[in-house]
C-alpha cells in the first residue's frame, strides 16, 4: 500500500492519495481492510460504479461488526459450570481411573469429583447449566457452546497468551489488536480496542495479552479503569499539572494547531505532520467522549439491577462474596455495552487477576466451591445482562459475545476440595453476531477429561478463524510482516467451524 504522497497535478487524485496515506497512518486504527473499504467507497463516489460494496471491502459479507470477549483468568472449570458429566455424579469419590498416565500440573490427583452444583435444563434447547450460572439460562438459545477446546499447556502464562494472542510466547498481538488492525474503528473519538482488566490486578502476563506487539501501537488494547480519576492513561492532566486549566488547555490546542500547520506548510511531502495535527483534534474529542461513555450514573435503575450493580461506595466484606462479584463484573459489562454501542470495535472484560491469595481468580486448586461460586454468580449475572441488553437494543445480531478461559479443570480432585489444571479439554462459548444459538458443539468425553473424539477437537485457532470469518475476514489473509514472517492471529493453523454459523 502506498504510504507516501505522490505528486500529481490532478487535484482530486491528490486528495485521494493524501487521504489514503492519512488514513493509513492515523491512530484510532484504520487498518488495512477498513482502509481498503473506505477507499473503495471514495473511488465509487468518483466514478459512479459499485464494487465490493456488498462485502464492504472485506473478504466475506460480515455478519458481525464488533466483539466483546469475557476472559476468565485462572482457568474456569467447564465441569462445574457448563459441561455436565453424569458419570462424575455416579462415580463421585471413587478412585479416578483415566485409563492412561495423566500428567497433572501439580502432583497427586485424587478421586473423581462430581460438579459442586446441581445442573438444570434451560431454554428450548434444554442446555444443562450449573446453578451458579443459572442467570445465563434465558440466553442459552442464543449461545453456541464448544466443549472440546484443547490447549497446549497447563501453565497459566503460556496458556493465557495462547488463548489471548494465538501464541504461547509473549510478543504477539492480542486478538483485539488484530481486529483493530483489520477493521479499524467505527468511532474515532474512542479507542478501537478497549480492555477492562479486573480492578484487583492483571491476569497472567499483564498487558502482553492485549498489547499490539509488532503491530502499530495504536492497535494496543487501551486499558480503562472506570473508577480511577484518569480512567484512561493520561486522558486528563496529571495532578503535577495543576497549572493546566480548561482555558489554557483549549488555547494550547488552538496554538498547536496553528503552529503545527505553519510548520507543515513549510515542510511539504510529509503527511506525518498533518496526521499529528489530526490526532490532537481526536484527542480533544476523546476527552469528552470517553468520560461520557464510561459514566453509568444516567442508566435507569432496572438496568443497574439487571447487571447486579450496587450503589457507589457500598462496603464489602473481606471474604469473597457473590454480591461484590456481581457488582464488579456487572459494572464492567455495562461499560462494555456502552462502549460497543458507541462504536468501539473490541472490548475485552477480565474476571480474575494473576495468582494471589486470597484468590480472586478461577484457579481453584484448594477449594472450588469457595472461589468458583461467587465468581461464577458474578460472571453469569453480568454476562447474561450484557447479552439481554445488547439483544433488546438490536445490537446482539451484529455483536459477538465470546466467553473463554485459558484451560479447564480436572474431573478428579487434587486430594482436597479443588481441581488441578486441565489443558486437555475445556469449554468456550459464543453468542450473537451470526453465531448459531442453542447448540453444544464438540463433546468432551464422559469424564470431561479429553475430547470425546481425540482426533477431532477444537483449538483457539479455529475459534479465532470463525470469529474473523463472522467479521468478514479470511483469517489467512489478515497478515503483518514481522522479522521475516507474515504473521497472523491463527499462526499457520485454524479451520472455520461451519457448525457454529447461523
Amino acid at each position, binding site marked *: 500500500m502506498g504510504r507516501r504522497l505522490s505528486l500529481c497535478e490532478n487535484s482530486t487524485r491528490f486528495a485521494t492519495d493524501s487521504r489514503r496515506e492519512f488514513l493509513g497512518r492515523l*491512530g484510532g486504527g484504520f487498518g488495512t481492510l477498513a482502509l481498503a473499504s473506505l477507499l473503495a467507497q471514495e473511488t465509487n463516489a468518483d466514478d459512479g460504479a459499485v464494487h465490493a460494496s456488498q462485502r464492504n471491502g472485506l473478504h466475506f459479507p460480515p455478519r458481525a461488526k464488533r466483539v466483546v470477549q469475557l476472559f476468565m483468568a485462572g482457568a474456569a472449570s467447564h465441569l462445574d459450570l457448563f459441561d455436565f458429566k453424569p458419570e462424575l455424579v455416579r462415580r463421585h469419590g471413587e478412585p479416578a481411573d483415566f485409563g492412561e498416565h495423566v500428567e497433572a500440573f501439580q502432583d497427586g490427583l485424587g478421586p473423581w469429583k462430581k460438579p459442586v452444583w446441581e445442573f438444570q435444563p434451560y431454554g428450548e434447547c434444554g442446555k444443562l447449566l450449573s446453578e451458579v450460572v443459572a442467570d445465563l439460562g434465558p440466553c442459552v438459545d442464543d449461545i453456541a457452546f464448544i466443549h472440546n477446546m484443547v490447549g497446549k499447556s497447563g501453565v497459566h502464562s503460556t496458556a493465557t497468551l495462547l488463548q489471548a494472542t494465538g501464541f504461547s510466547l509473549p510478543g504477539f498481538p492480542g486478538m483485539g489488536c488484530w481486529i483493530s488492525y483489520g477493521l479499524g474503528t467505527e468511532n474515532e473519538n474512542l479507542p478501537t480496542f478497549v480492555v477492562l482488566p479486573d480492578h484487583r490486578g492483571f491476569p497472567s502476563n499483564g498487558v502482553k495479552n492485549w498489547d499490539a*506487539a509488532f503491530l502499530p501501537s495504536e492497535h494496543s488494547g487501551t486499558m480503562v479503569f472506570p473508577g480511577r480519576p484518569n480512567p*484512561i492513561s493520561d486522558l486528563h492532566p*496529571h495532578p*503535577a499539572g495543576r497549572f493546566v486549566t480548561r482555558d489554557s488547555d483549549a488555547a494550547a490546542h488552538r496554538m498547536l494547531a496553528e503552529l503545527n500547520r505553519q510548520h507543515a506548510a513549510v515542510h511539504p511531502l510529509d503527511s506525518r505532520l498533518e496526521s499529528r495535527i489530526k490526532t490532537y483534534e481526536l484527542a480533544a474529542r476523546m476527552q469528552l467522549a470517553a468520560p461520557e461513555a464510561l459514566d453509568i450514573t444516567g442508566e435507569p435503575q432496572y438496568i443497574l439491577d439487571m447487571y447486579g450493580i450496587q450503589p457507589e461506595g457500598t462496603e464489602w466484606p473481606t471474604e469473597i462474596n457473590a454480591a461484590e462479584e456481581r457488582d464488579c463484573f456487572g459494572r464492567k459489562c455495562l461499560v462494555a455495552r456502552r462502549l460497543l454501542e458507541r462504536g468501539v470495535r473490541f472490548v475485552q472484560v477480565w474476571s480474575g487477576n494473576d495468582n494471589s491469595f486470597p484468590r480472586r481468580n478461577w484457579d481453584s486448586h484448594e477449594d472450588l466451591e469457595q472461589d468458583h461460586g461467587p465468581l461464577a454468580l458474578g460472571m453469569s449475572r453480568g454476562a447474561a445482562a450484557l447479552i439481554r441488553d445488547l439483544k433488546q437494543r438490536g445490537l446482539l445480531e451484529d455483536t459477538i459475545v465470546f466467553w473463554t478461559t485459558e484451560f479447564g479443570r480436572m474431573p478428579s480432585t487434587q486430594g482436597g476440595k479443588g481441581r488441578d489444571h486441565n489443558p486437555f479439554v475445556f469449554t468456550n462459548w459464543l453468542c450473537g453476531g451470526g453465531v448459531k444459538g442453542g447448540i453444544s458443539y464438540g463433546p468432551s468425553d464422559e469424564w470431561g477429561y479429553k475430547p470425546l473424539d481425540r482426533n477431532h477437537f477444537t483449538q483457539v485457532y479455529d475459534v479465532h478463524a470463525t470469529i474473523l470469518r463472522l467479521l468478514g475476514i479470511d483469517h489467512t489473509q489478515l497478515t503483518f*510482516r514481522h522479522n*521475516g514472517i507474515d504473521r497472523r492471529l491463527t499462526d499457520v493453523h485454524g479451520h472455520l467451524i*461451519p457448525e457454529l454459523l447461523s
Partner: protein
Amino acid sequence: MITRRRCWQLLFMSIAMSVAPPAMARDDEGREVTRIFQQHCLSCHNDRDRAGGLSLTTGDALRAGGDSGDAIEVGDPGASLLMDLITPENGRADMPKEGPPLSRDQIAVIRRWIRTGAEWPEDVVLHPPTNVDLNVWSLQPLHRPAVPGVSAEKSEQSQGSTTAHPIDAFVLDKLRQHELTISQLANRRMLARRLFYDLTGLPPTPEELDEFESDPDPSAYERLVDRLLSSPRYGERWARHWLDVAHYADSHGFDKDQPRPHAWPYRDYVVRALNEDKSWSRFIEEQIAGDVLYPDTVDGIEALGFLAAGPWDLIGHVELPESKIDGKVARHLDRDNMVRNAVQSFTSLTVGCAQCHNHKFDPISQREYYQLQSVFAALDRADKLYDATPQTTVQRRELLARITEFESKRTALAEDSLAVLEIDAKLADFKKQLAELPPARRVYAGTVHYGSGNFSGVGPFGGNPREIYLLHRGDVTQPRELVIPGALSMVAGLSPVFDLPADHSEGDRRAALAKWLTHPDNSFTWRSIVNRVWQSHFGIGLVETPNDFGQMGSTPSHPELLDWLACEFRDGGQSLKTLHRLIVTSETYRQTSFVNANCDRVQRAHAIDADNRLLWRGNRRKLDAESIRDSVLAISGKLDLTMGGPGFEEFVIEKPEHSPQYRYDLHDVQDPRSHRRSIYRFTVRSQLQPFMNALDCADPSQQVARRNEGESPLQALTLLNNGLILAMSEYFAEKLQMEHASRAQDRPDQAAQPDGDELSDMVARAFLEVTSRRATENEIALLREYAAEHGLANLCRLLFNLNEFLFVD
C-alpha cells in the same frame, strides 16, 4: 449488482465443470495423482519426516504403508484408509493436516486411480517441496566492490571537495542511473540537531549550536562528530539500539513477572563496550562465550547477560520439573530464545523458523536448528557470581584451590598430629583471606545453574550439556535423532562443523559458535551490523528488514555499498565509531531533509522514489521515546547524567511477594531518582511504562530490529497530560525565569534592550531550547501572548507538543 451477478455465474460454471471432470488416460491419471501428493502431502510424507510412518515419494513407499497399516487397498477405494482420511466431513478432512481439504475433483481422481490399479508412473520420484532459492543476494559471498568513479558534477551545491566520499560515490552512482541527484547540504543548525540526536539522543544546547554555527574552522563538523562520539552519551544512545535487538529487560515476563535485580550489569556492559569502541568480533565473542574466550575479565562475564536477556518462564522452570511435558516445553522454548537471540541478532537469519520443519524459504535445516540448540544445552538463566576485578577473581580461585588442596591433605592425616594443627592454621588463614575479599557481584546471565528442586540446572549433575534431539514438528514428545553442536551450512566458504573433541566442555561449544559468527567469511555477520548501523542513522536500512536477510526479507537498495561497508568495517578494525564517522561525514548523510515541492527535481524524484530509498534527500526522523523523554528532562534542567547501576523505578510494586503489580500511576514524577536517562529505566516486561509505550518504545518480549512509528490520539494525550511532561514543564518554566534573572544580573545592558521585554526573551529562549531554531517575530508574538495569559509552564507544555520538537530535520 452487475458484479454480484457475474460472480454467481462464475460460481455456477465452476460447479458445472466439477460435476463432469474430463476423462484421463491412466498414465495421466497417475501423474495427476502424484502431482496432488506432491502439492499437498509431501511436506510431511517424505522419506525424512515420514509422518505417521508413511512416505509418498515412490509407488513402493506408498504400497509399504505407514503406522496404521496399508494406505490404499488397490482396486477398492472404499476400503482404502487414504480415502477415509482425505474425504471431508462438514468441510473438514483429516488430511491434509494444514490447509483446506482437497477439492472434489482431486478426490475423484485419486478414487478412480485406486479403483483402476493405482499405477505409479515409473519415472516419478517425489521430493519434499522446497521454496529455497540459492540465488538470494545474501547467500552470495562477500567481496569488496570497487568504489564507482565519480565525475565532477556531484551534488547541486557541491562543496568543492576534490575526492568523493566513497559512500557518496555509491549513492550518486545509483542516483545517476535514475537521473537524480542528491539534495543540497543541510545548514549547520539543522545538521547539528540531527547529529546530536543521532549520536547522543539529546538535543544541542543553544550555546553549543551558536558555537558550531559560528565556528570558522572548515573542519568544525568533523570536530563536532569526534566530540560527540567520544561523549559517554554516545554509548548510552547506541546501547539502546542494541538492547532493542537483544530484547533486554529487568523482569522475567510471563506469569508472576518477577523482577531481575541483577540484569543491569549487562546493560552497563553494552554502554561501556560501545563507549570503549570494542571491536565487533570481541563484542560478539564476549556476549556468546566471554567466560571462555576472555577468562578472568569482568566484561567476559557481564556480557553473558546477553544470553539471558530475553523473557523467562518462571513457573515452567520452578514449578515444573524437566521430566514433565510442560517442563520440557518450557526448557525447549527457553533454549529456542537463546538460539534466536544469539544467531538472528548477529546474522539477521530467521533461524527460529526451522524449529518445527526445515526452513521454508532459506537453506536452514531443522537438524541445524537443533545443533544450535545443543550449543546452549548446558545453560539456564540465573545469577552468575563474579568479581569486580580480575585480580580478585584470580585470588579467589587460588584461595579456593588451596583450601581444597589442604582439606584433602588433612583427611589423610591422623586427627591429633602436629601436621594437622599446621594445616588447620593454614586453612583458617586462607578462609580469612577469602572472607576479606571484596564480595562477589552478580549478573543475570546464561550460565550453568547450580540449583535445587525443579529448577536444578545441570550444575549439580556435573555441568554437562543436556542431550538435544531433533524434535519432530518441534514437539517435545517426539524426539528423533541425537544431534551434536554445530552451526549453519548456508554461509559460503565457512564450515558449519565445530570439530570439538569428545571431551569438550559446554563452554567450548559456545566459543566455537562465537568463532563461527566472527569468522571473516561469515558474510551475514558483517552485512548485518553495518546495515543495523546504517538504519539507525537513516531510519531505514540498506536492507529494509534488518532481522531477515533471507528470501522473505527485502533486497538491498544499494548492494555494492552494503558489501563495501561490510568489508571496510570487517577489515578496518571493526570499529563502530569509525563506521559512524564514515557515514555521518558523507554528503549523503548531510543532505537537507527540506524539499521544495514545486521544484522540478523534487517532483521527479518524488514520482520515482517517494520513499527516498535512493537517498536523494535527507530523511526527517521522528524522535524515539527515549529521545523525547531525555530531551524533556534535559531541556527542563533536570536530567541526572549519573551512569550505570540498578535501574530506576517509575512504579510502585504492589504484592511483590506473589504476583507483582507494577503501578506506574502511583509513581511520584517529581522524584529526582527517576530523572536519569531512559536507558537506565527498570524495564518491566509484562507492564510496559505507559508513556514510553505510547511513544512506541521497544517491547522487550521480542527482538525489536526496527521500531514502529505511528501517531494516535492516545499519543497526543500522553504528550499533553503525562505527569512527566507536566512536572518538567513547570521546572522548565522555573529554569527560564532563573536563567533570565541571572542573565539580567550579569549583563544589565542586554536585559534592557528596547525591542524586547522579559517575557518575550524567555519565550524566545524556550522555543530555541526545544526546537534549536530561533522563533520568528510573529511566532514570538503569538507565544508571548499565550504565555502572558496562561503562564510559562503552560507555554512549555505547549512547546513539548510541537511537531518541530518531535521531528528532526
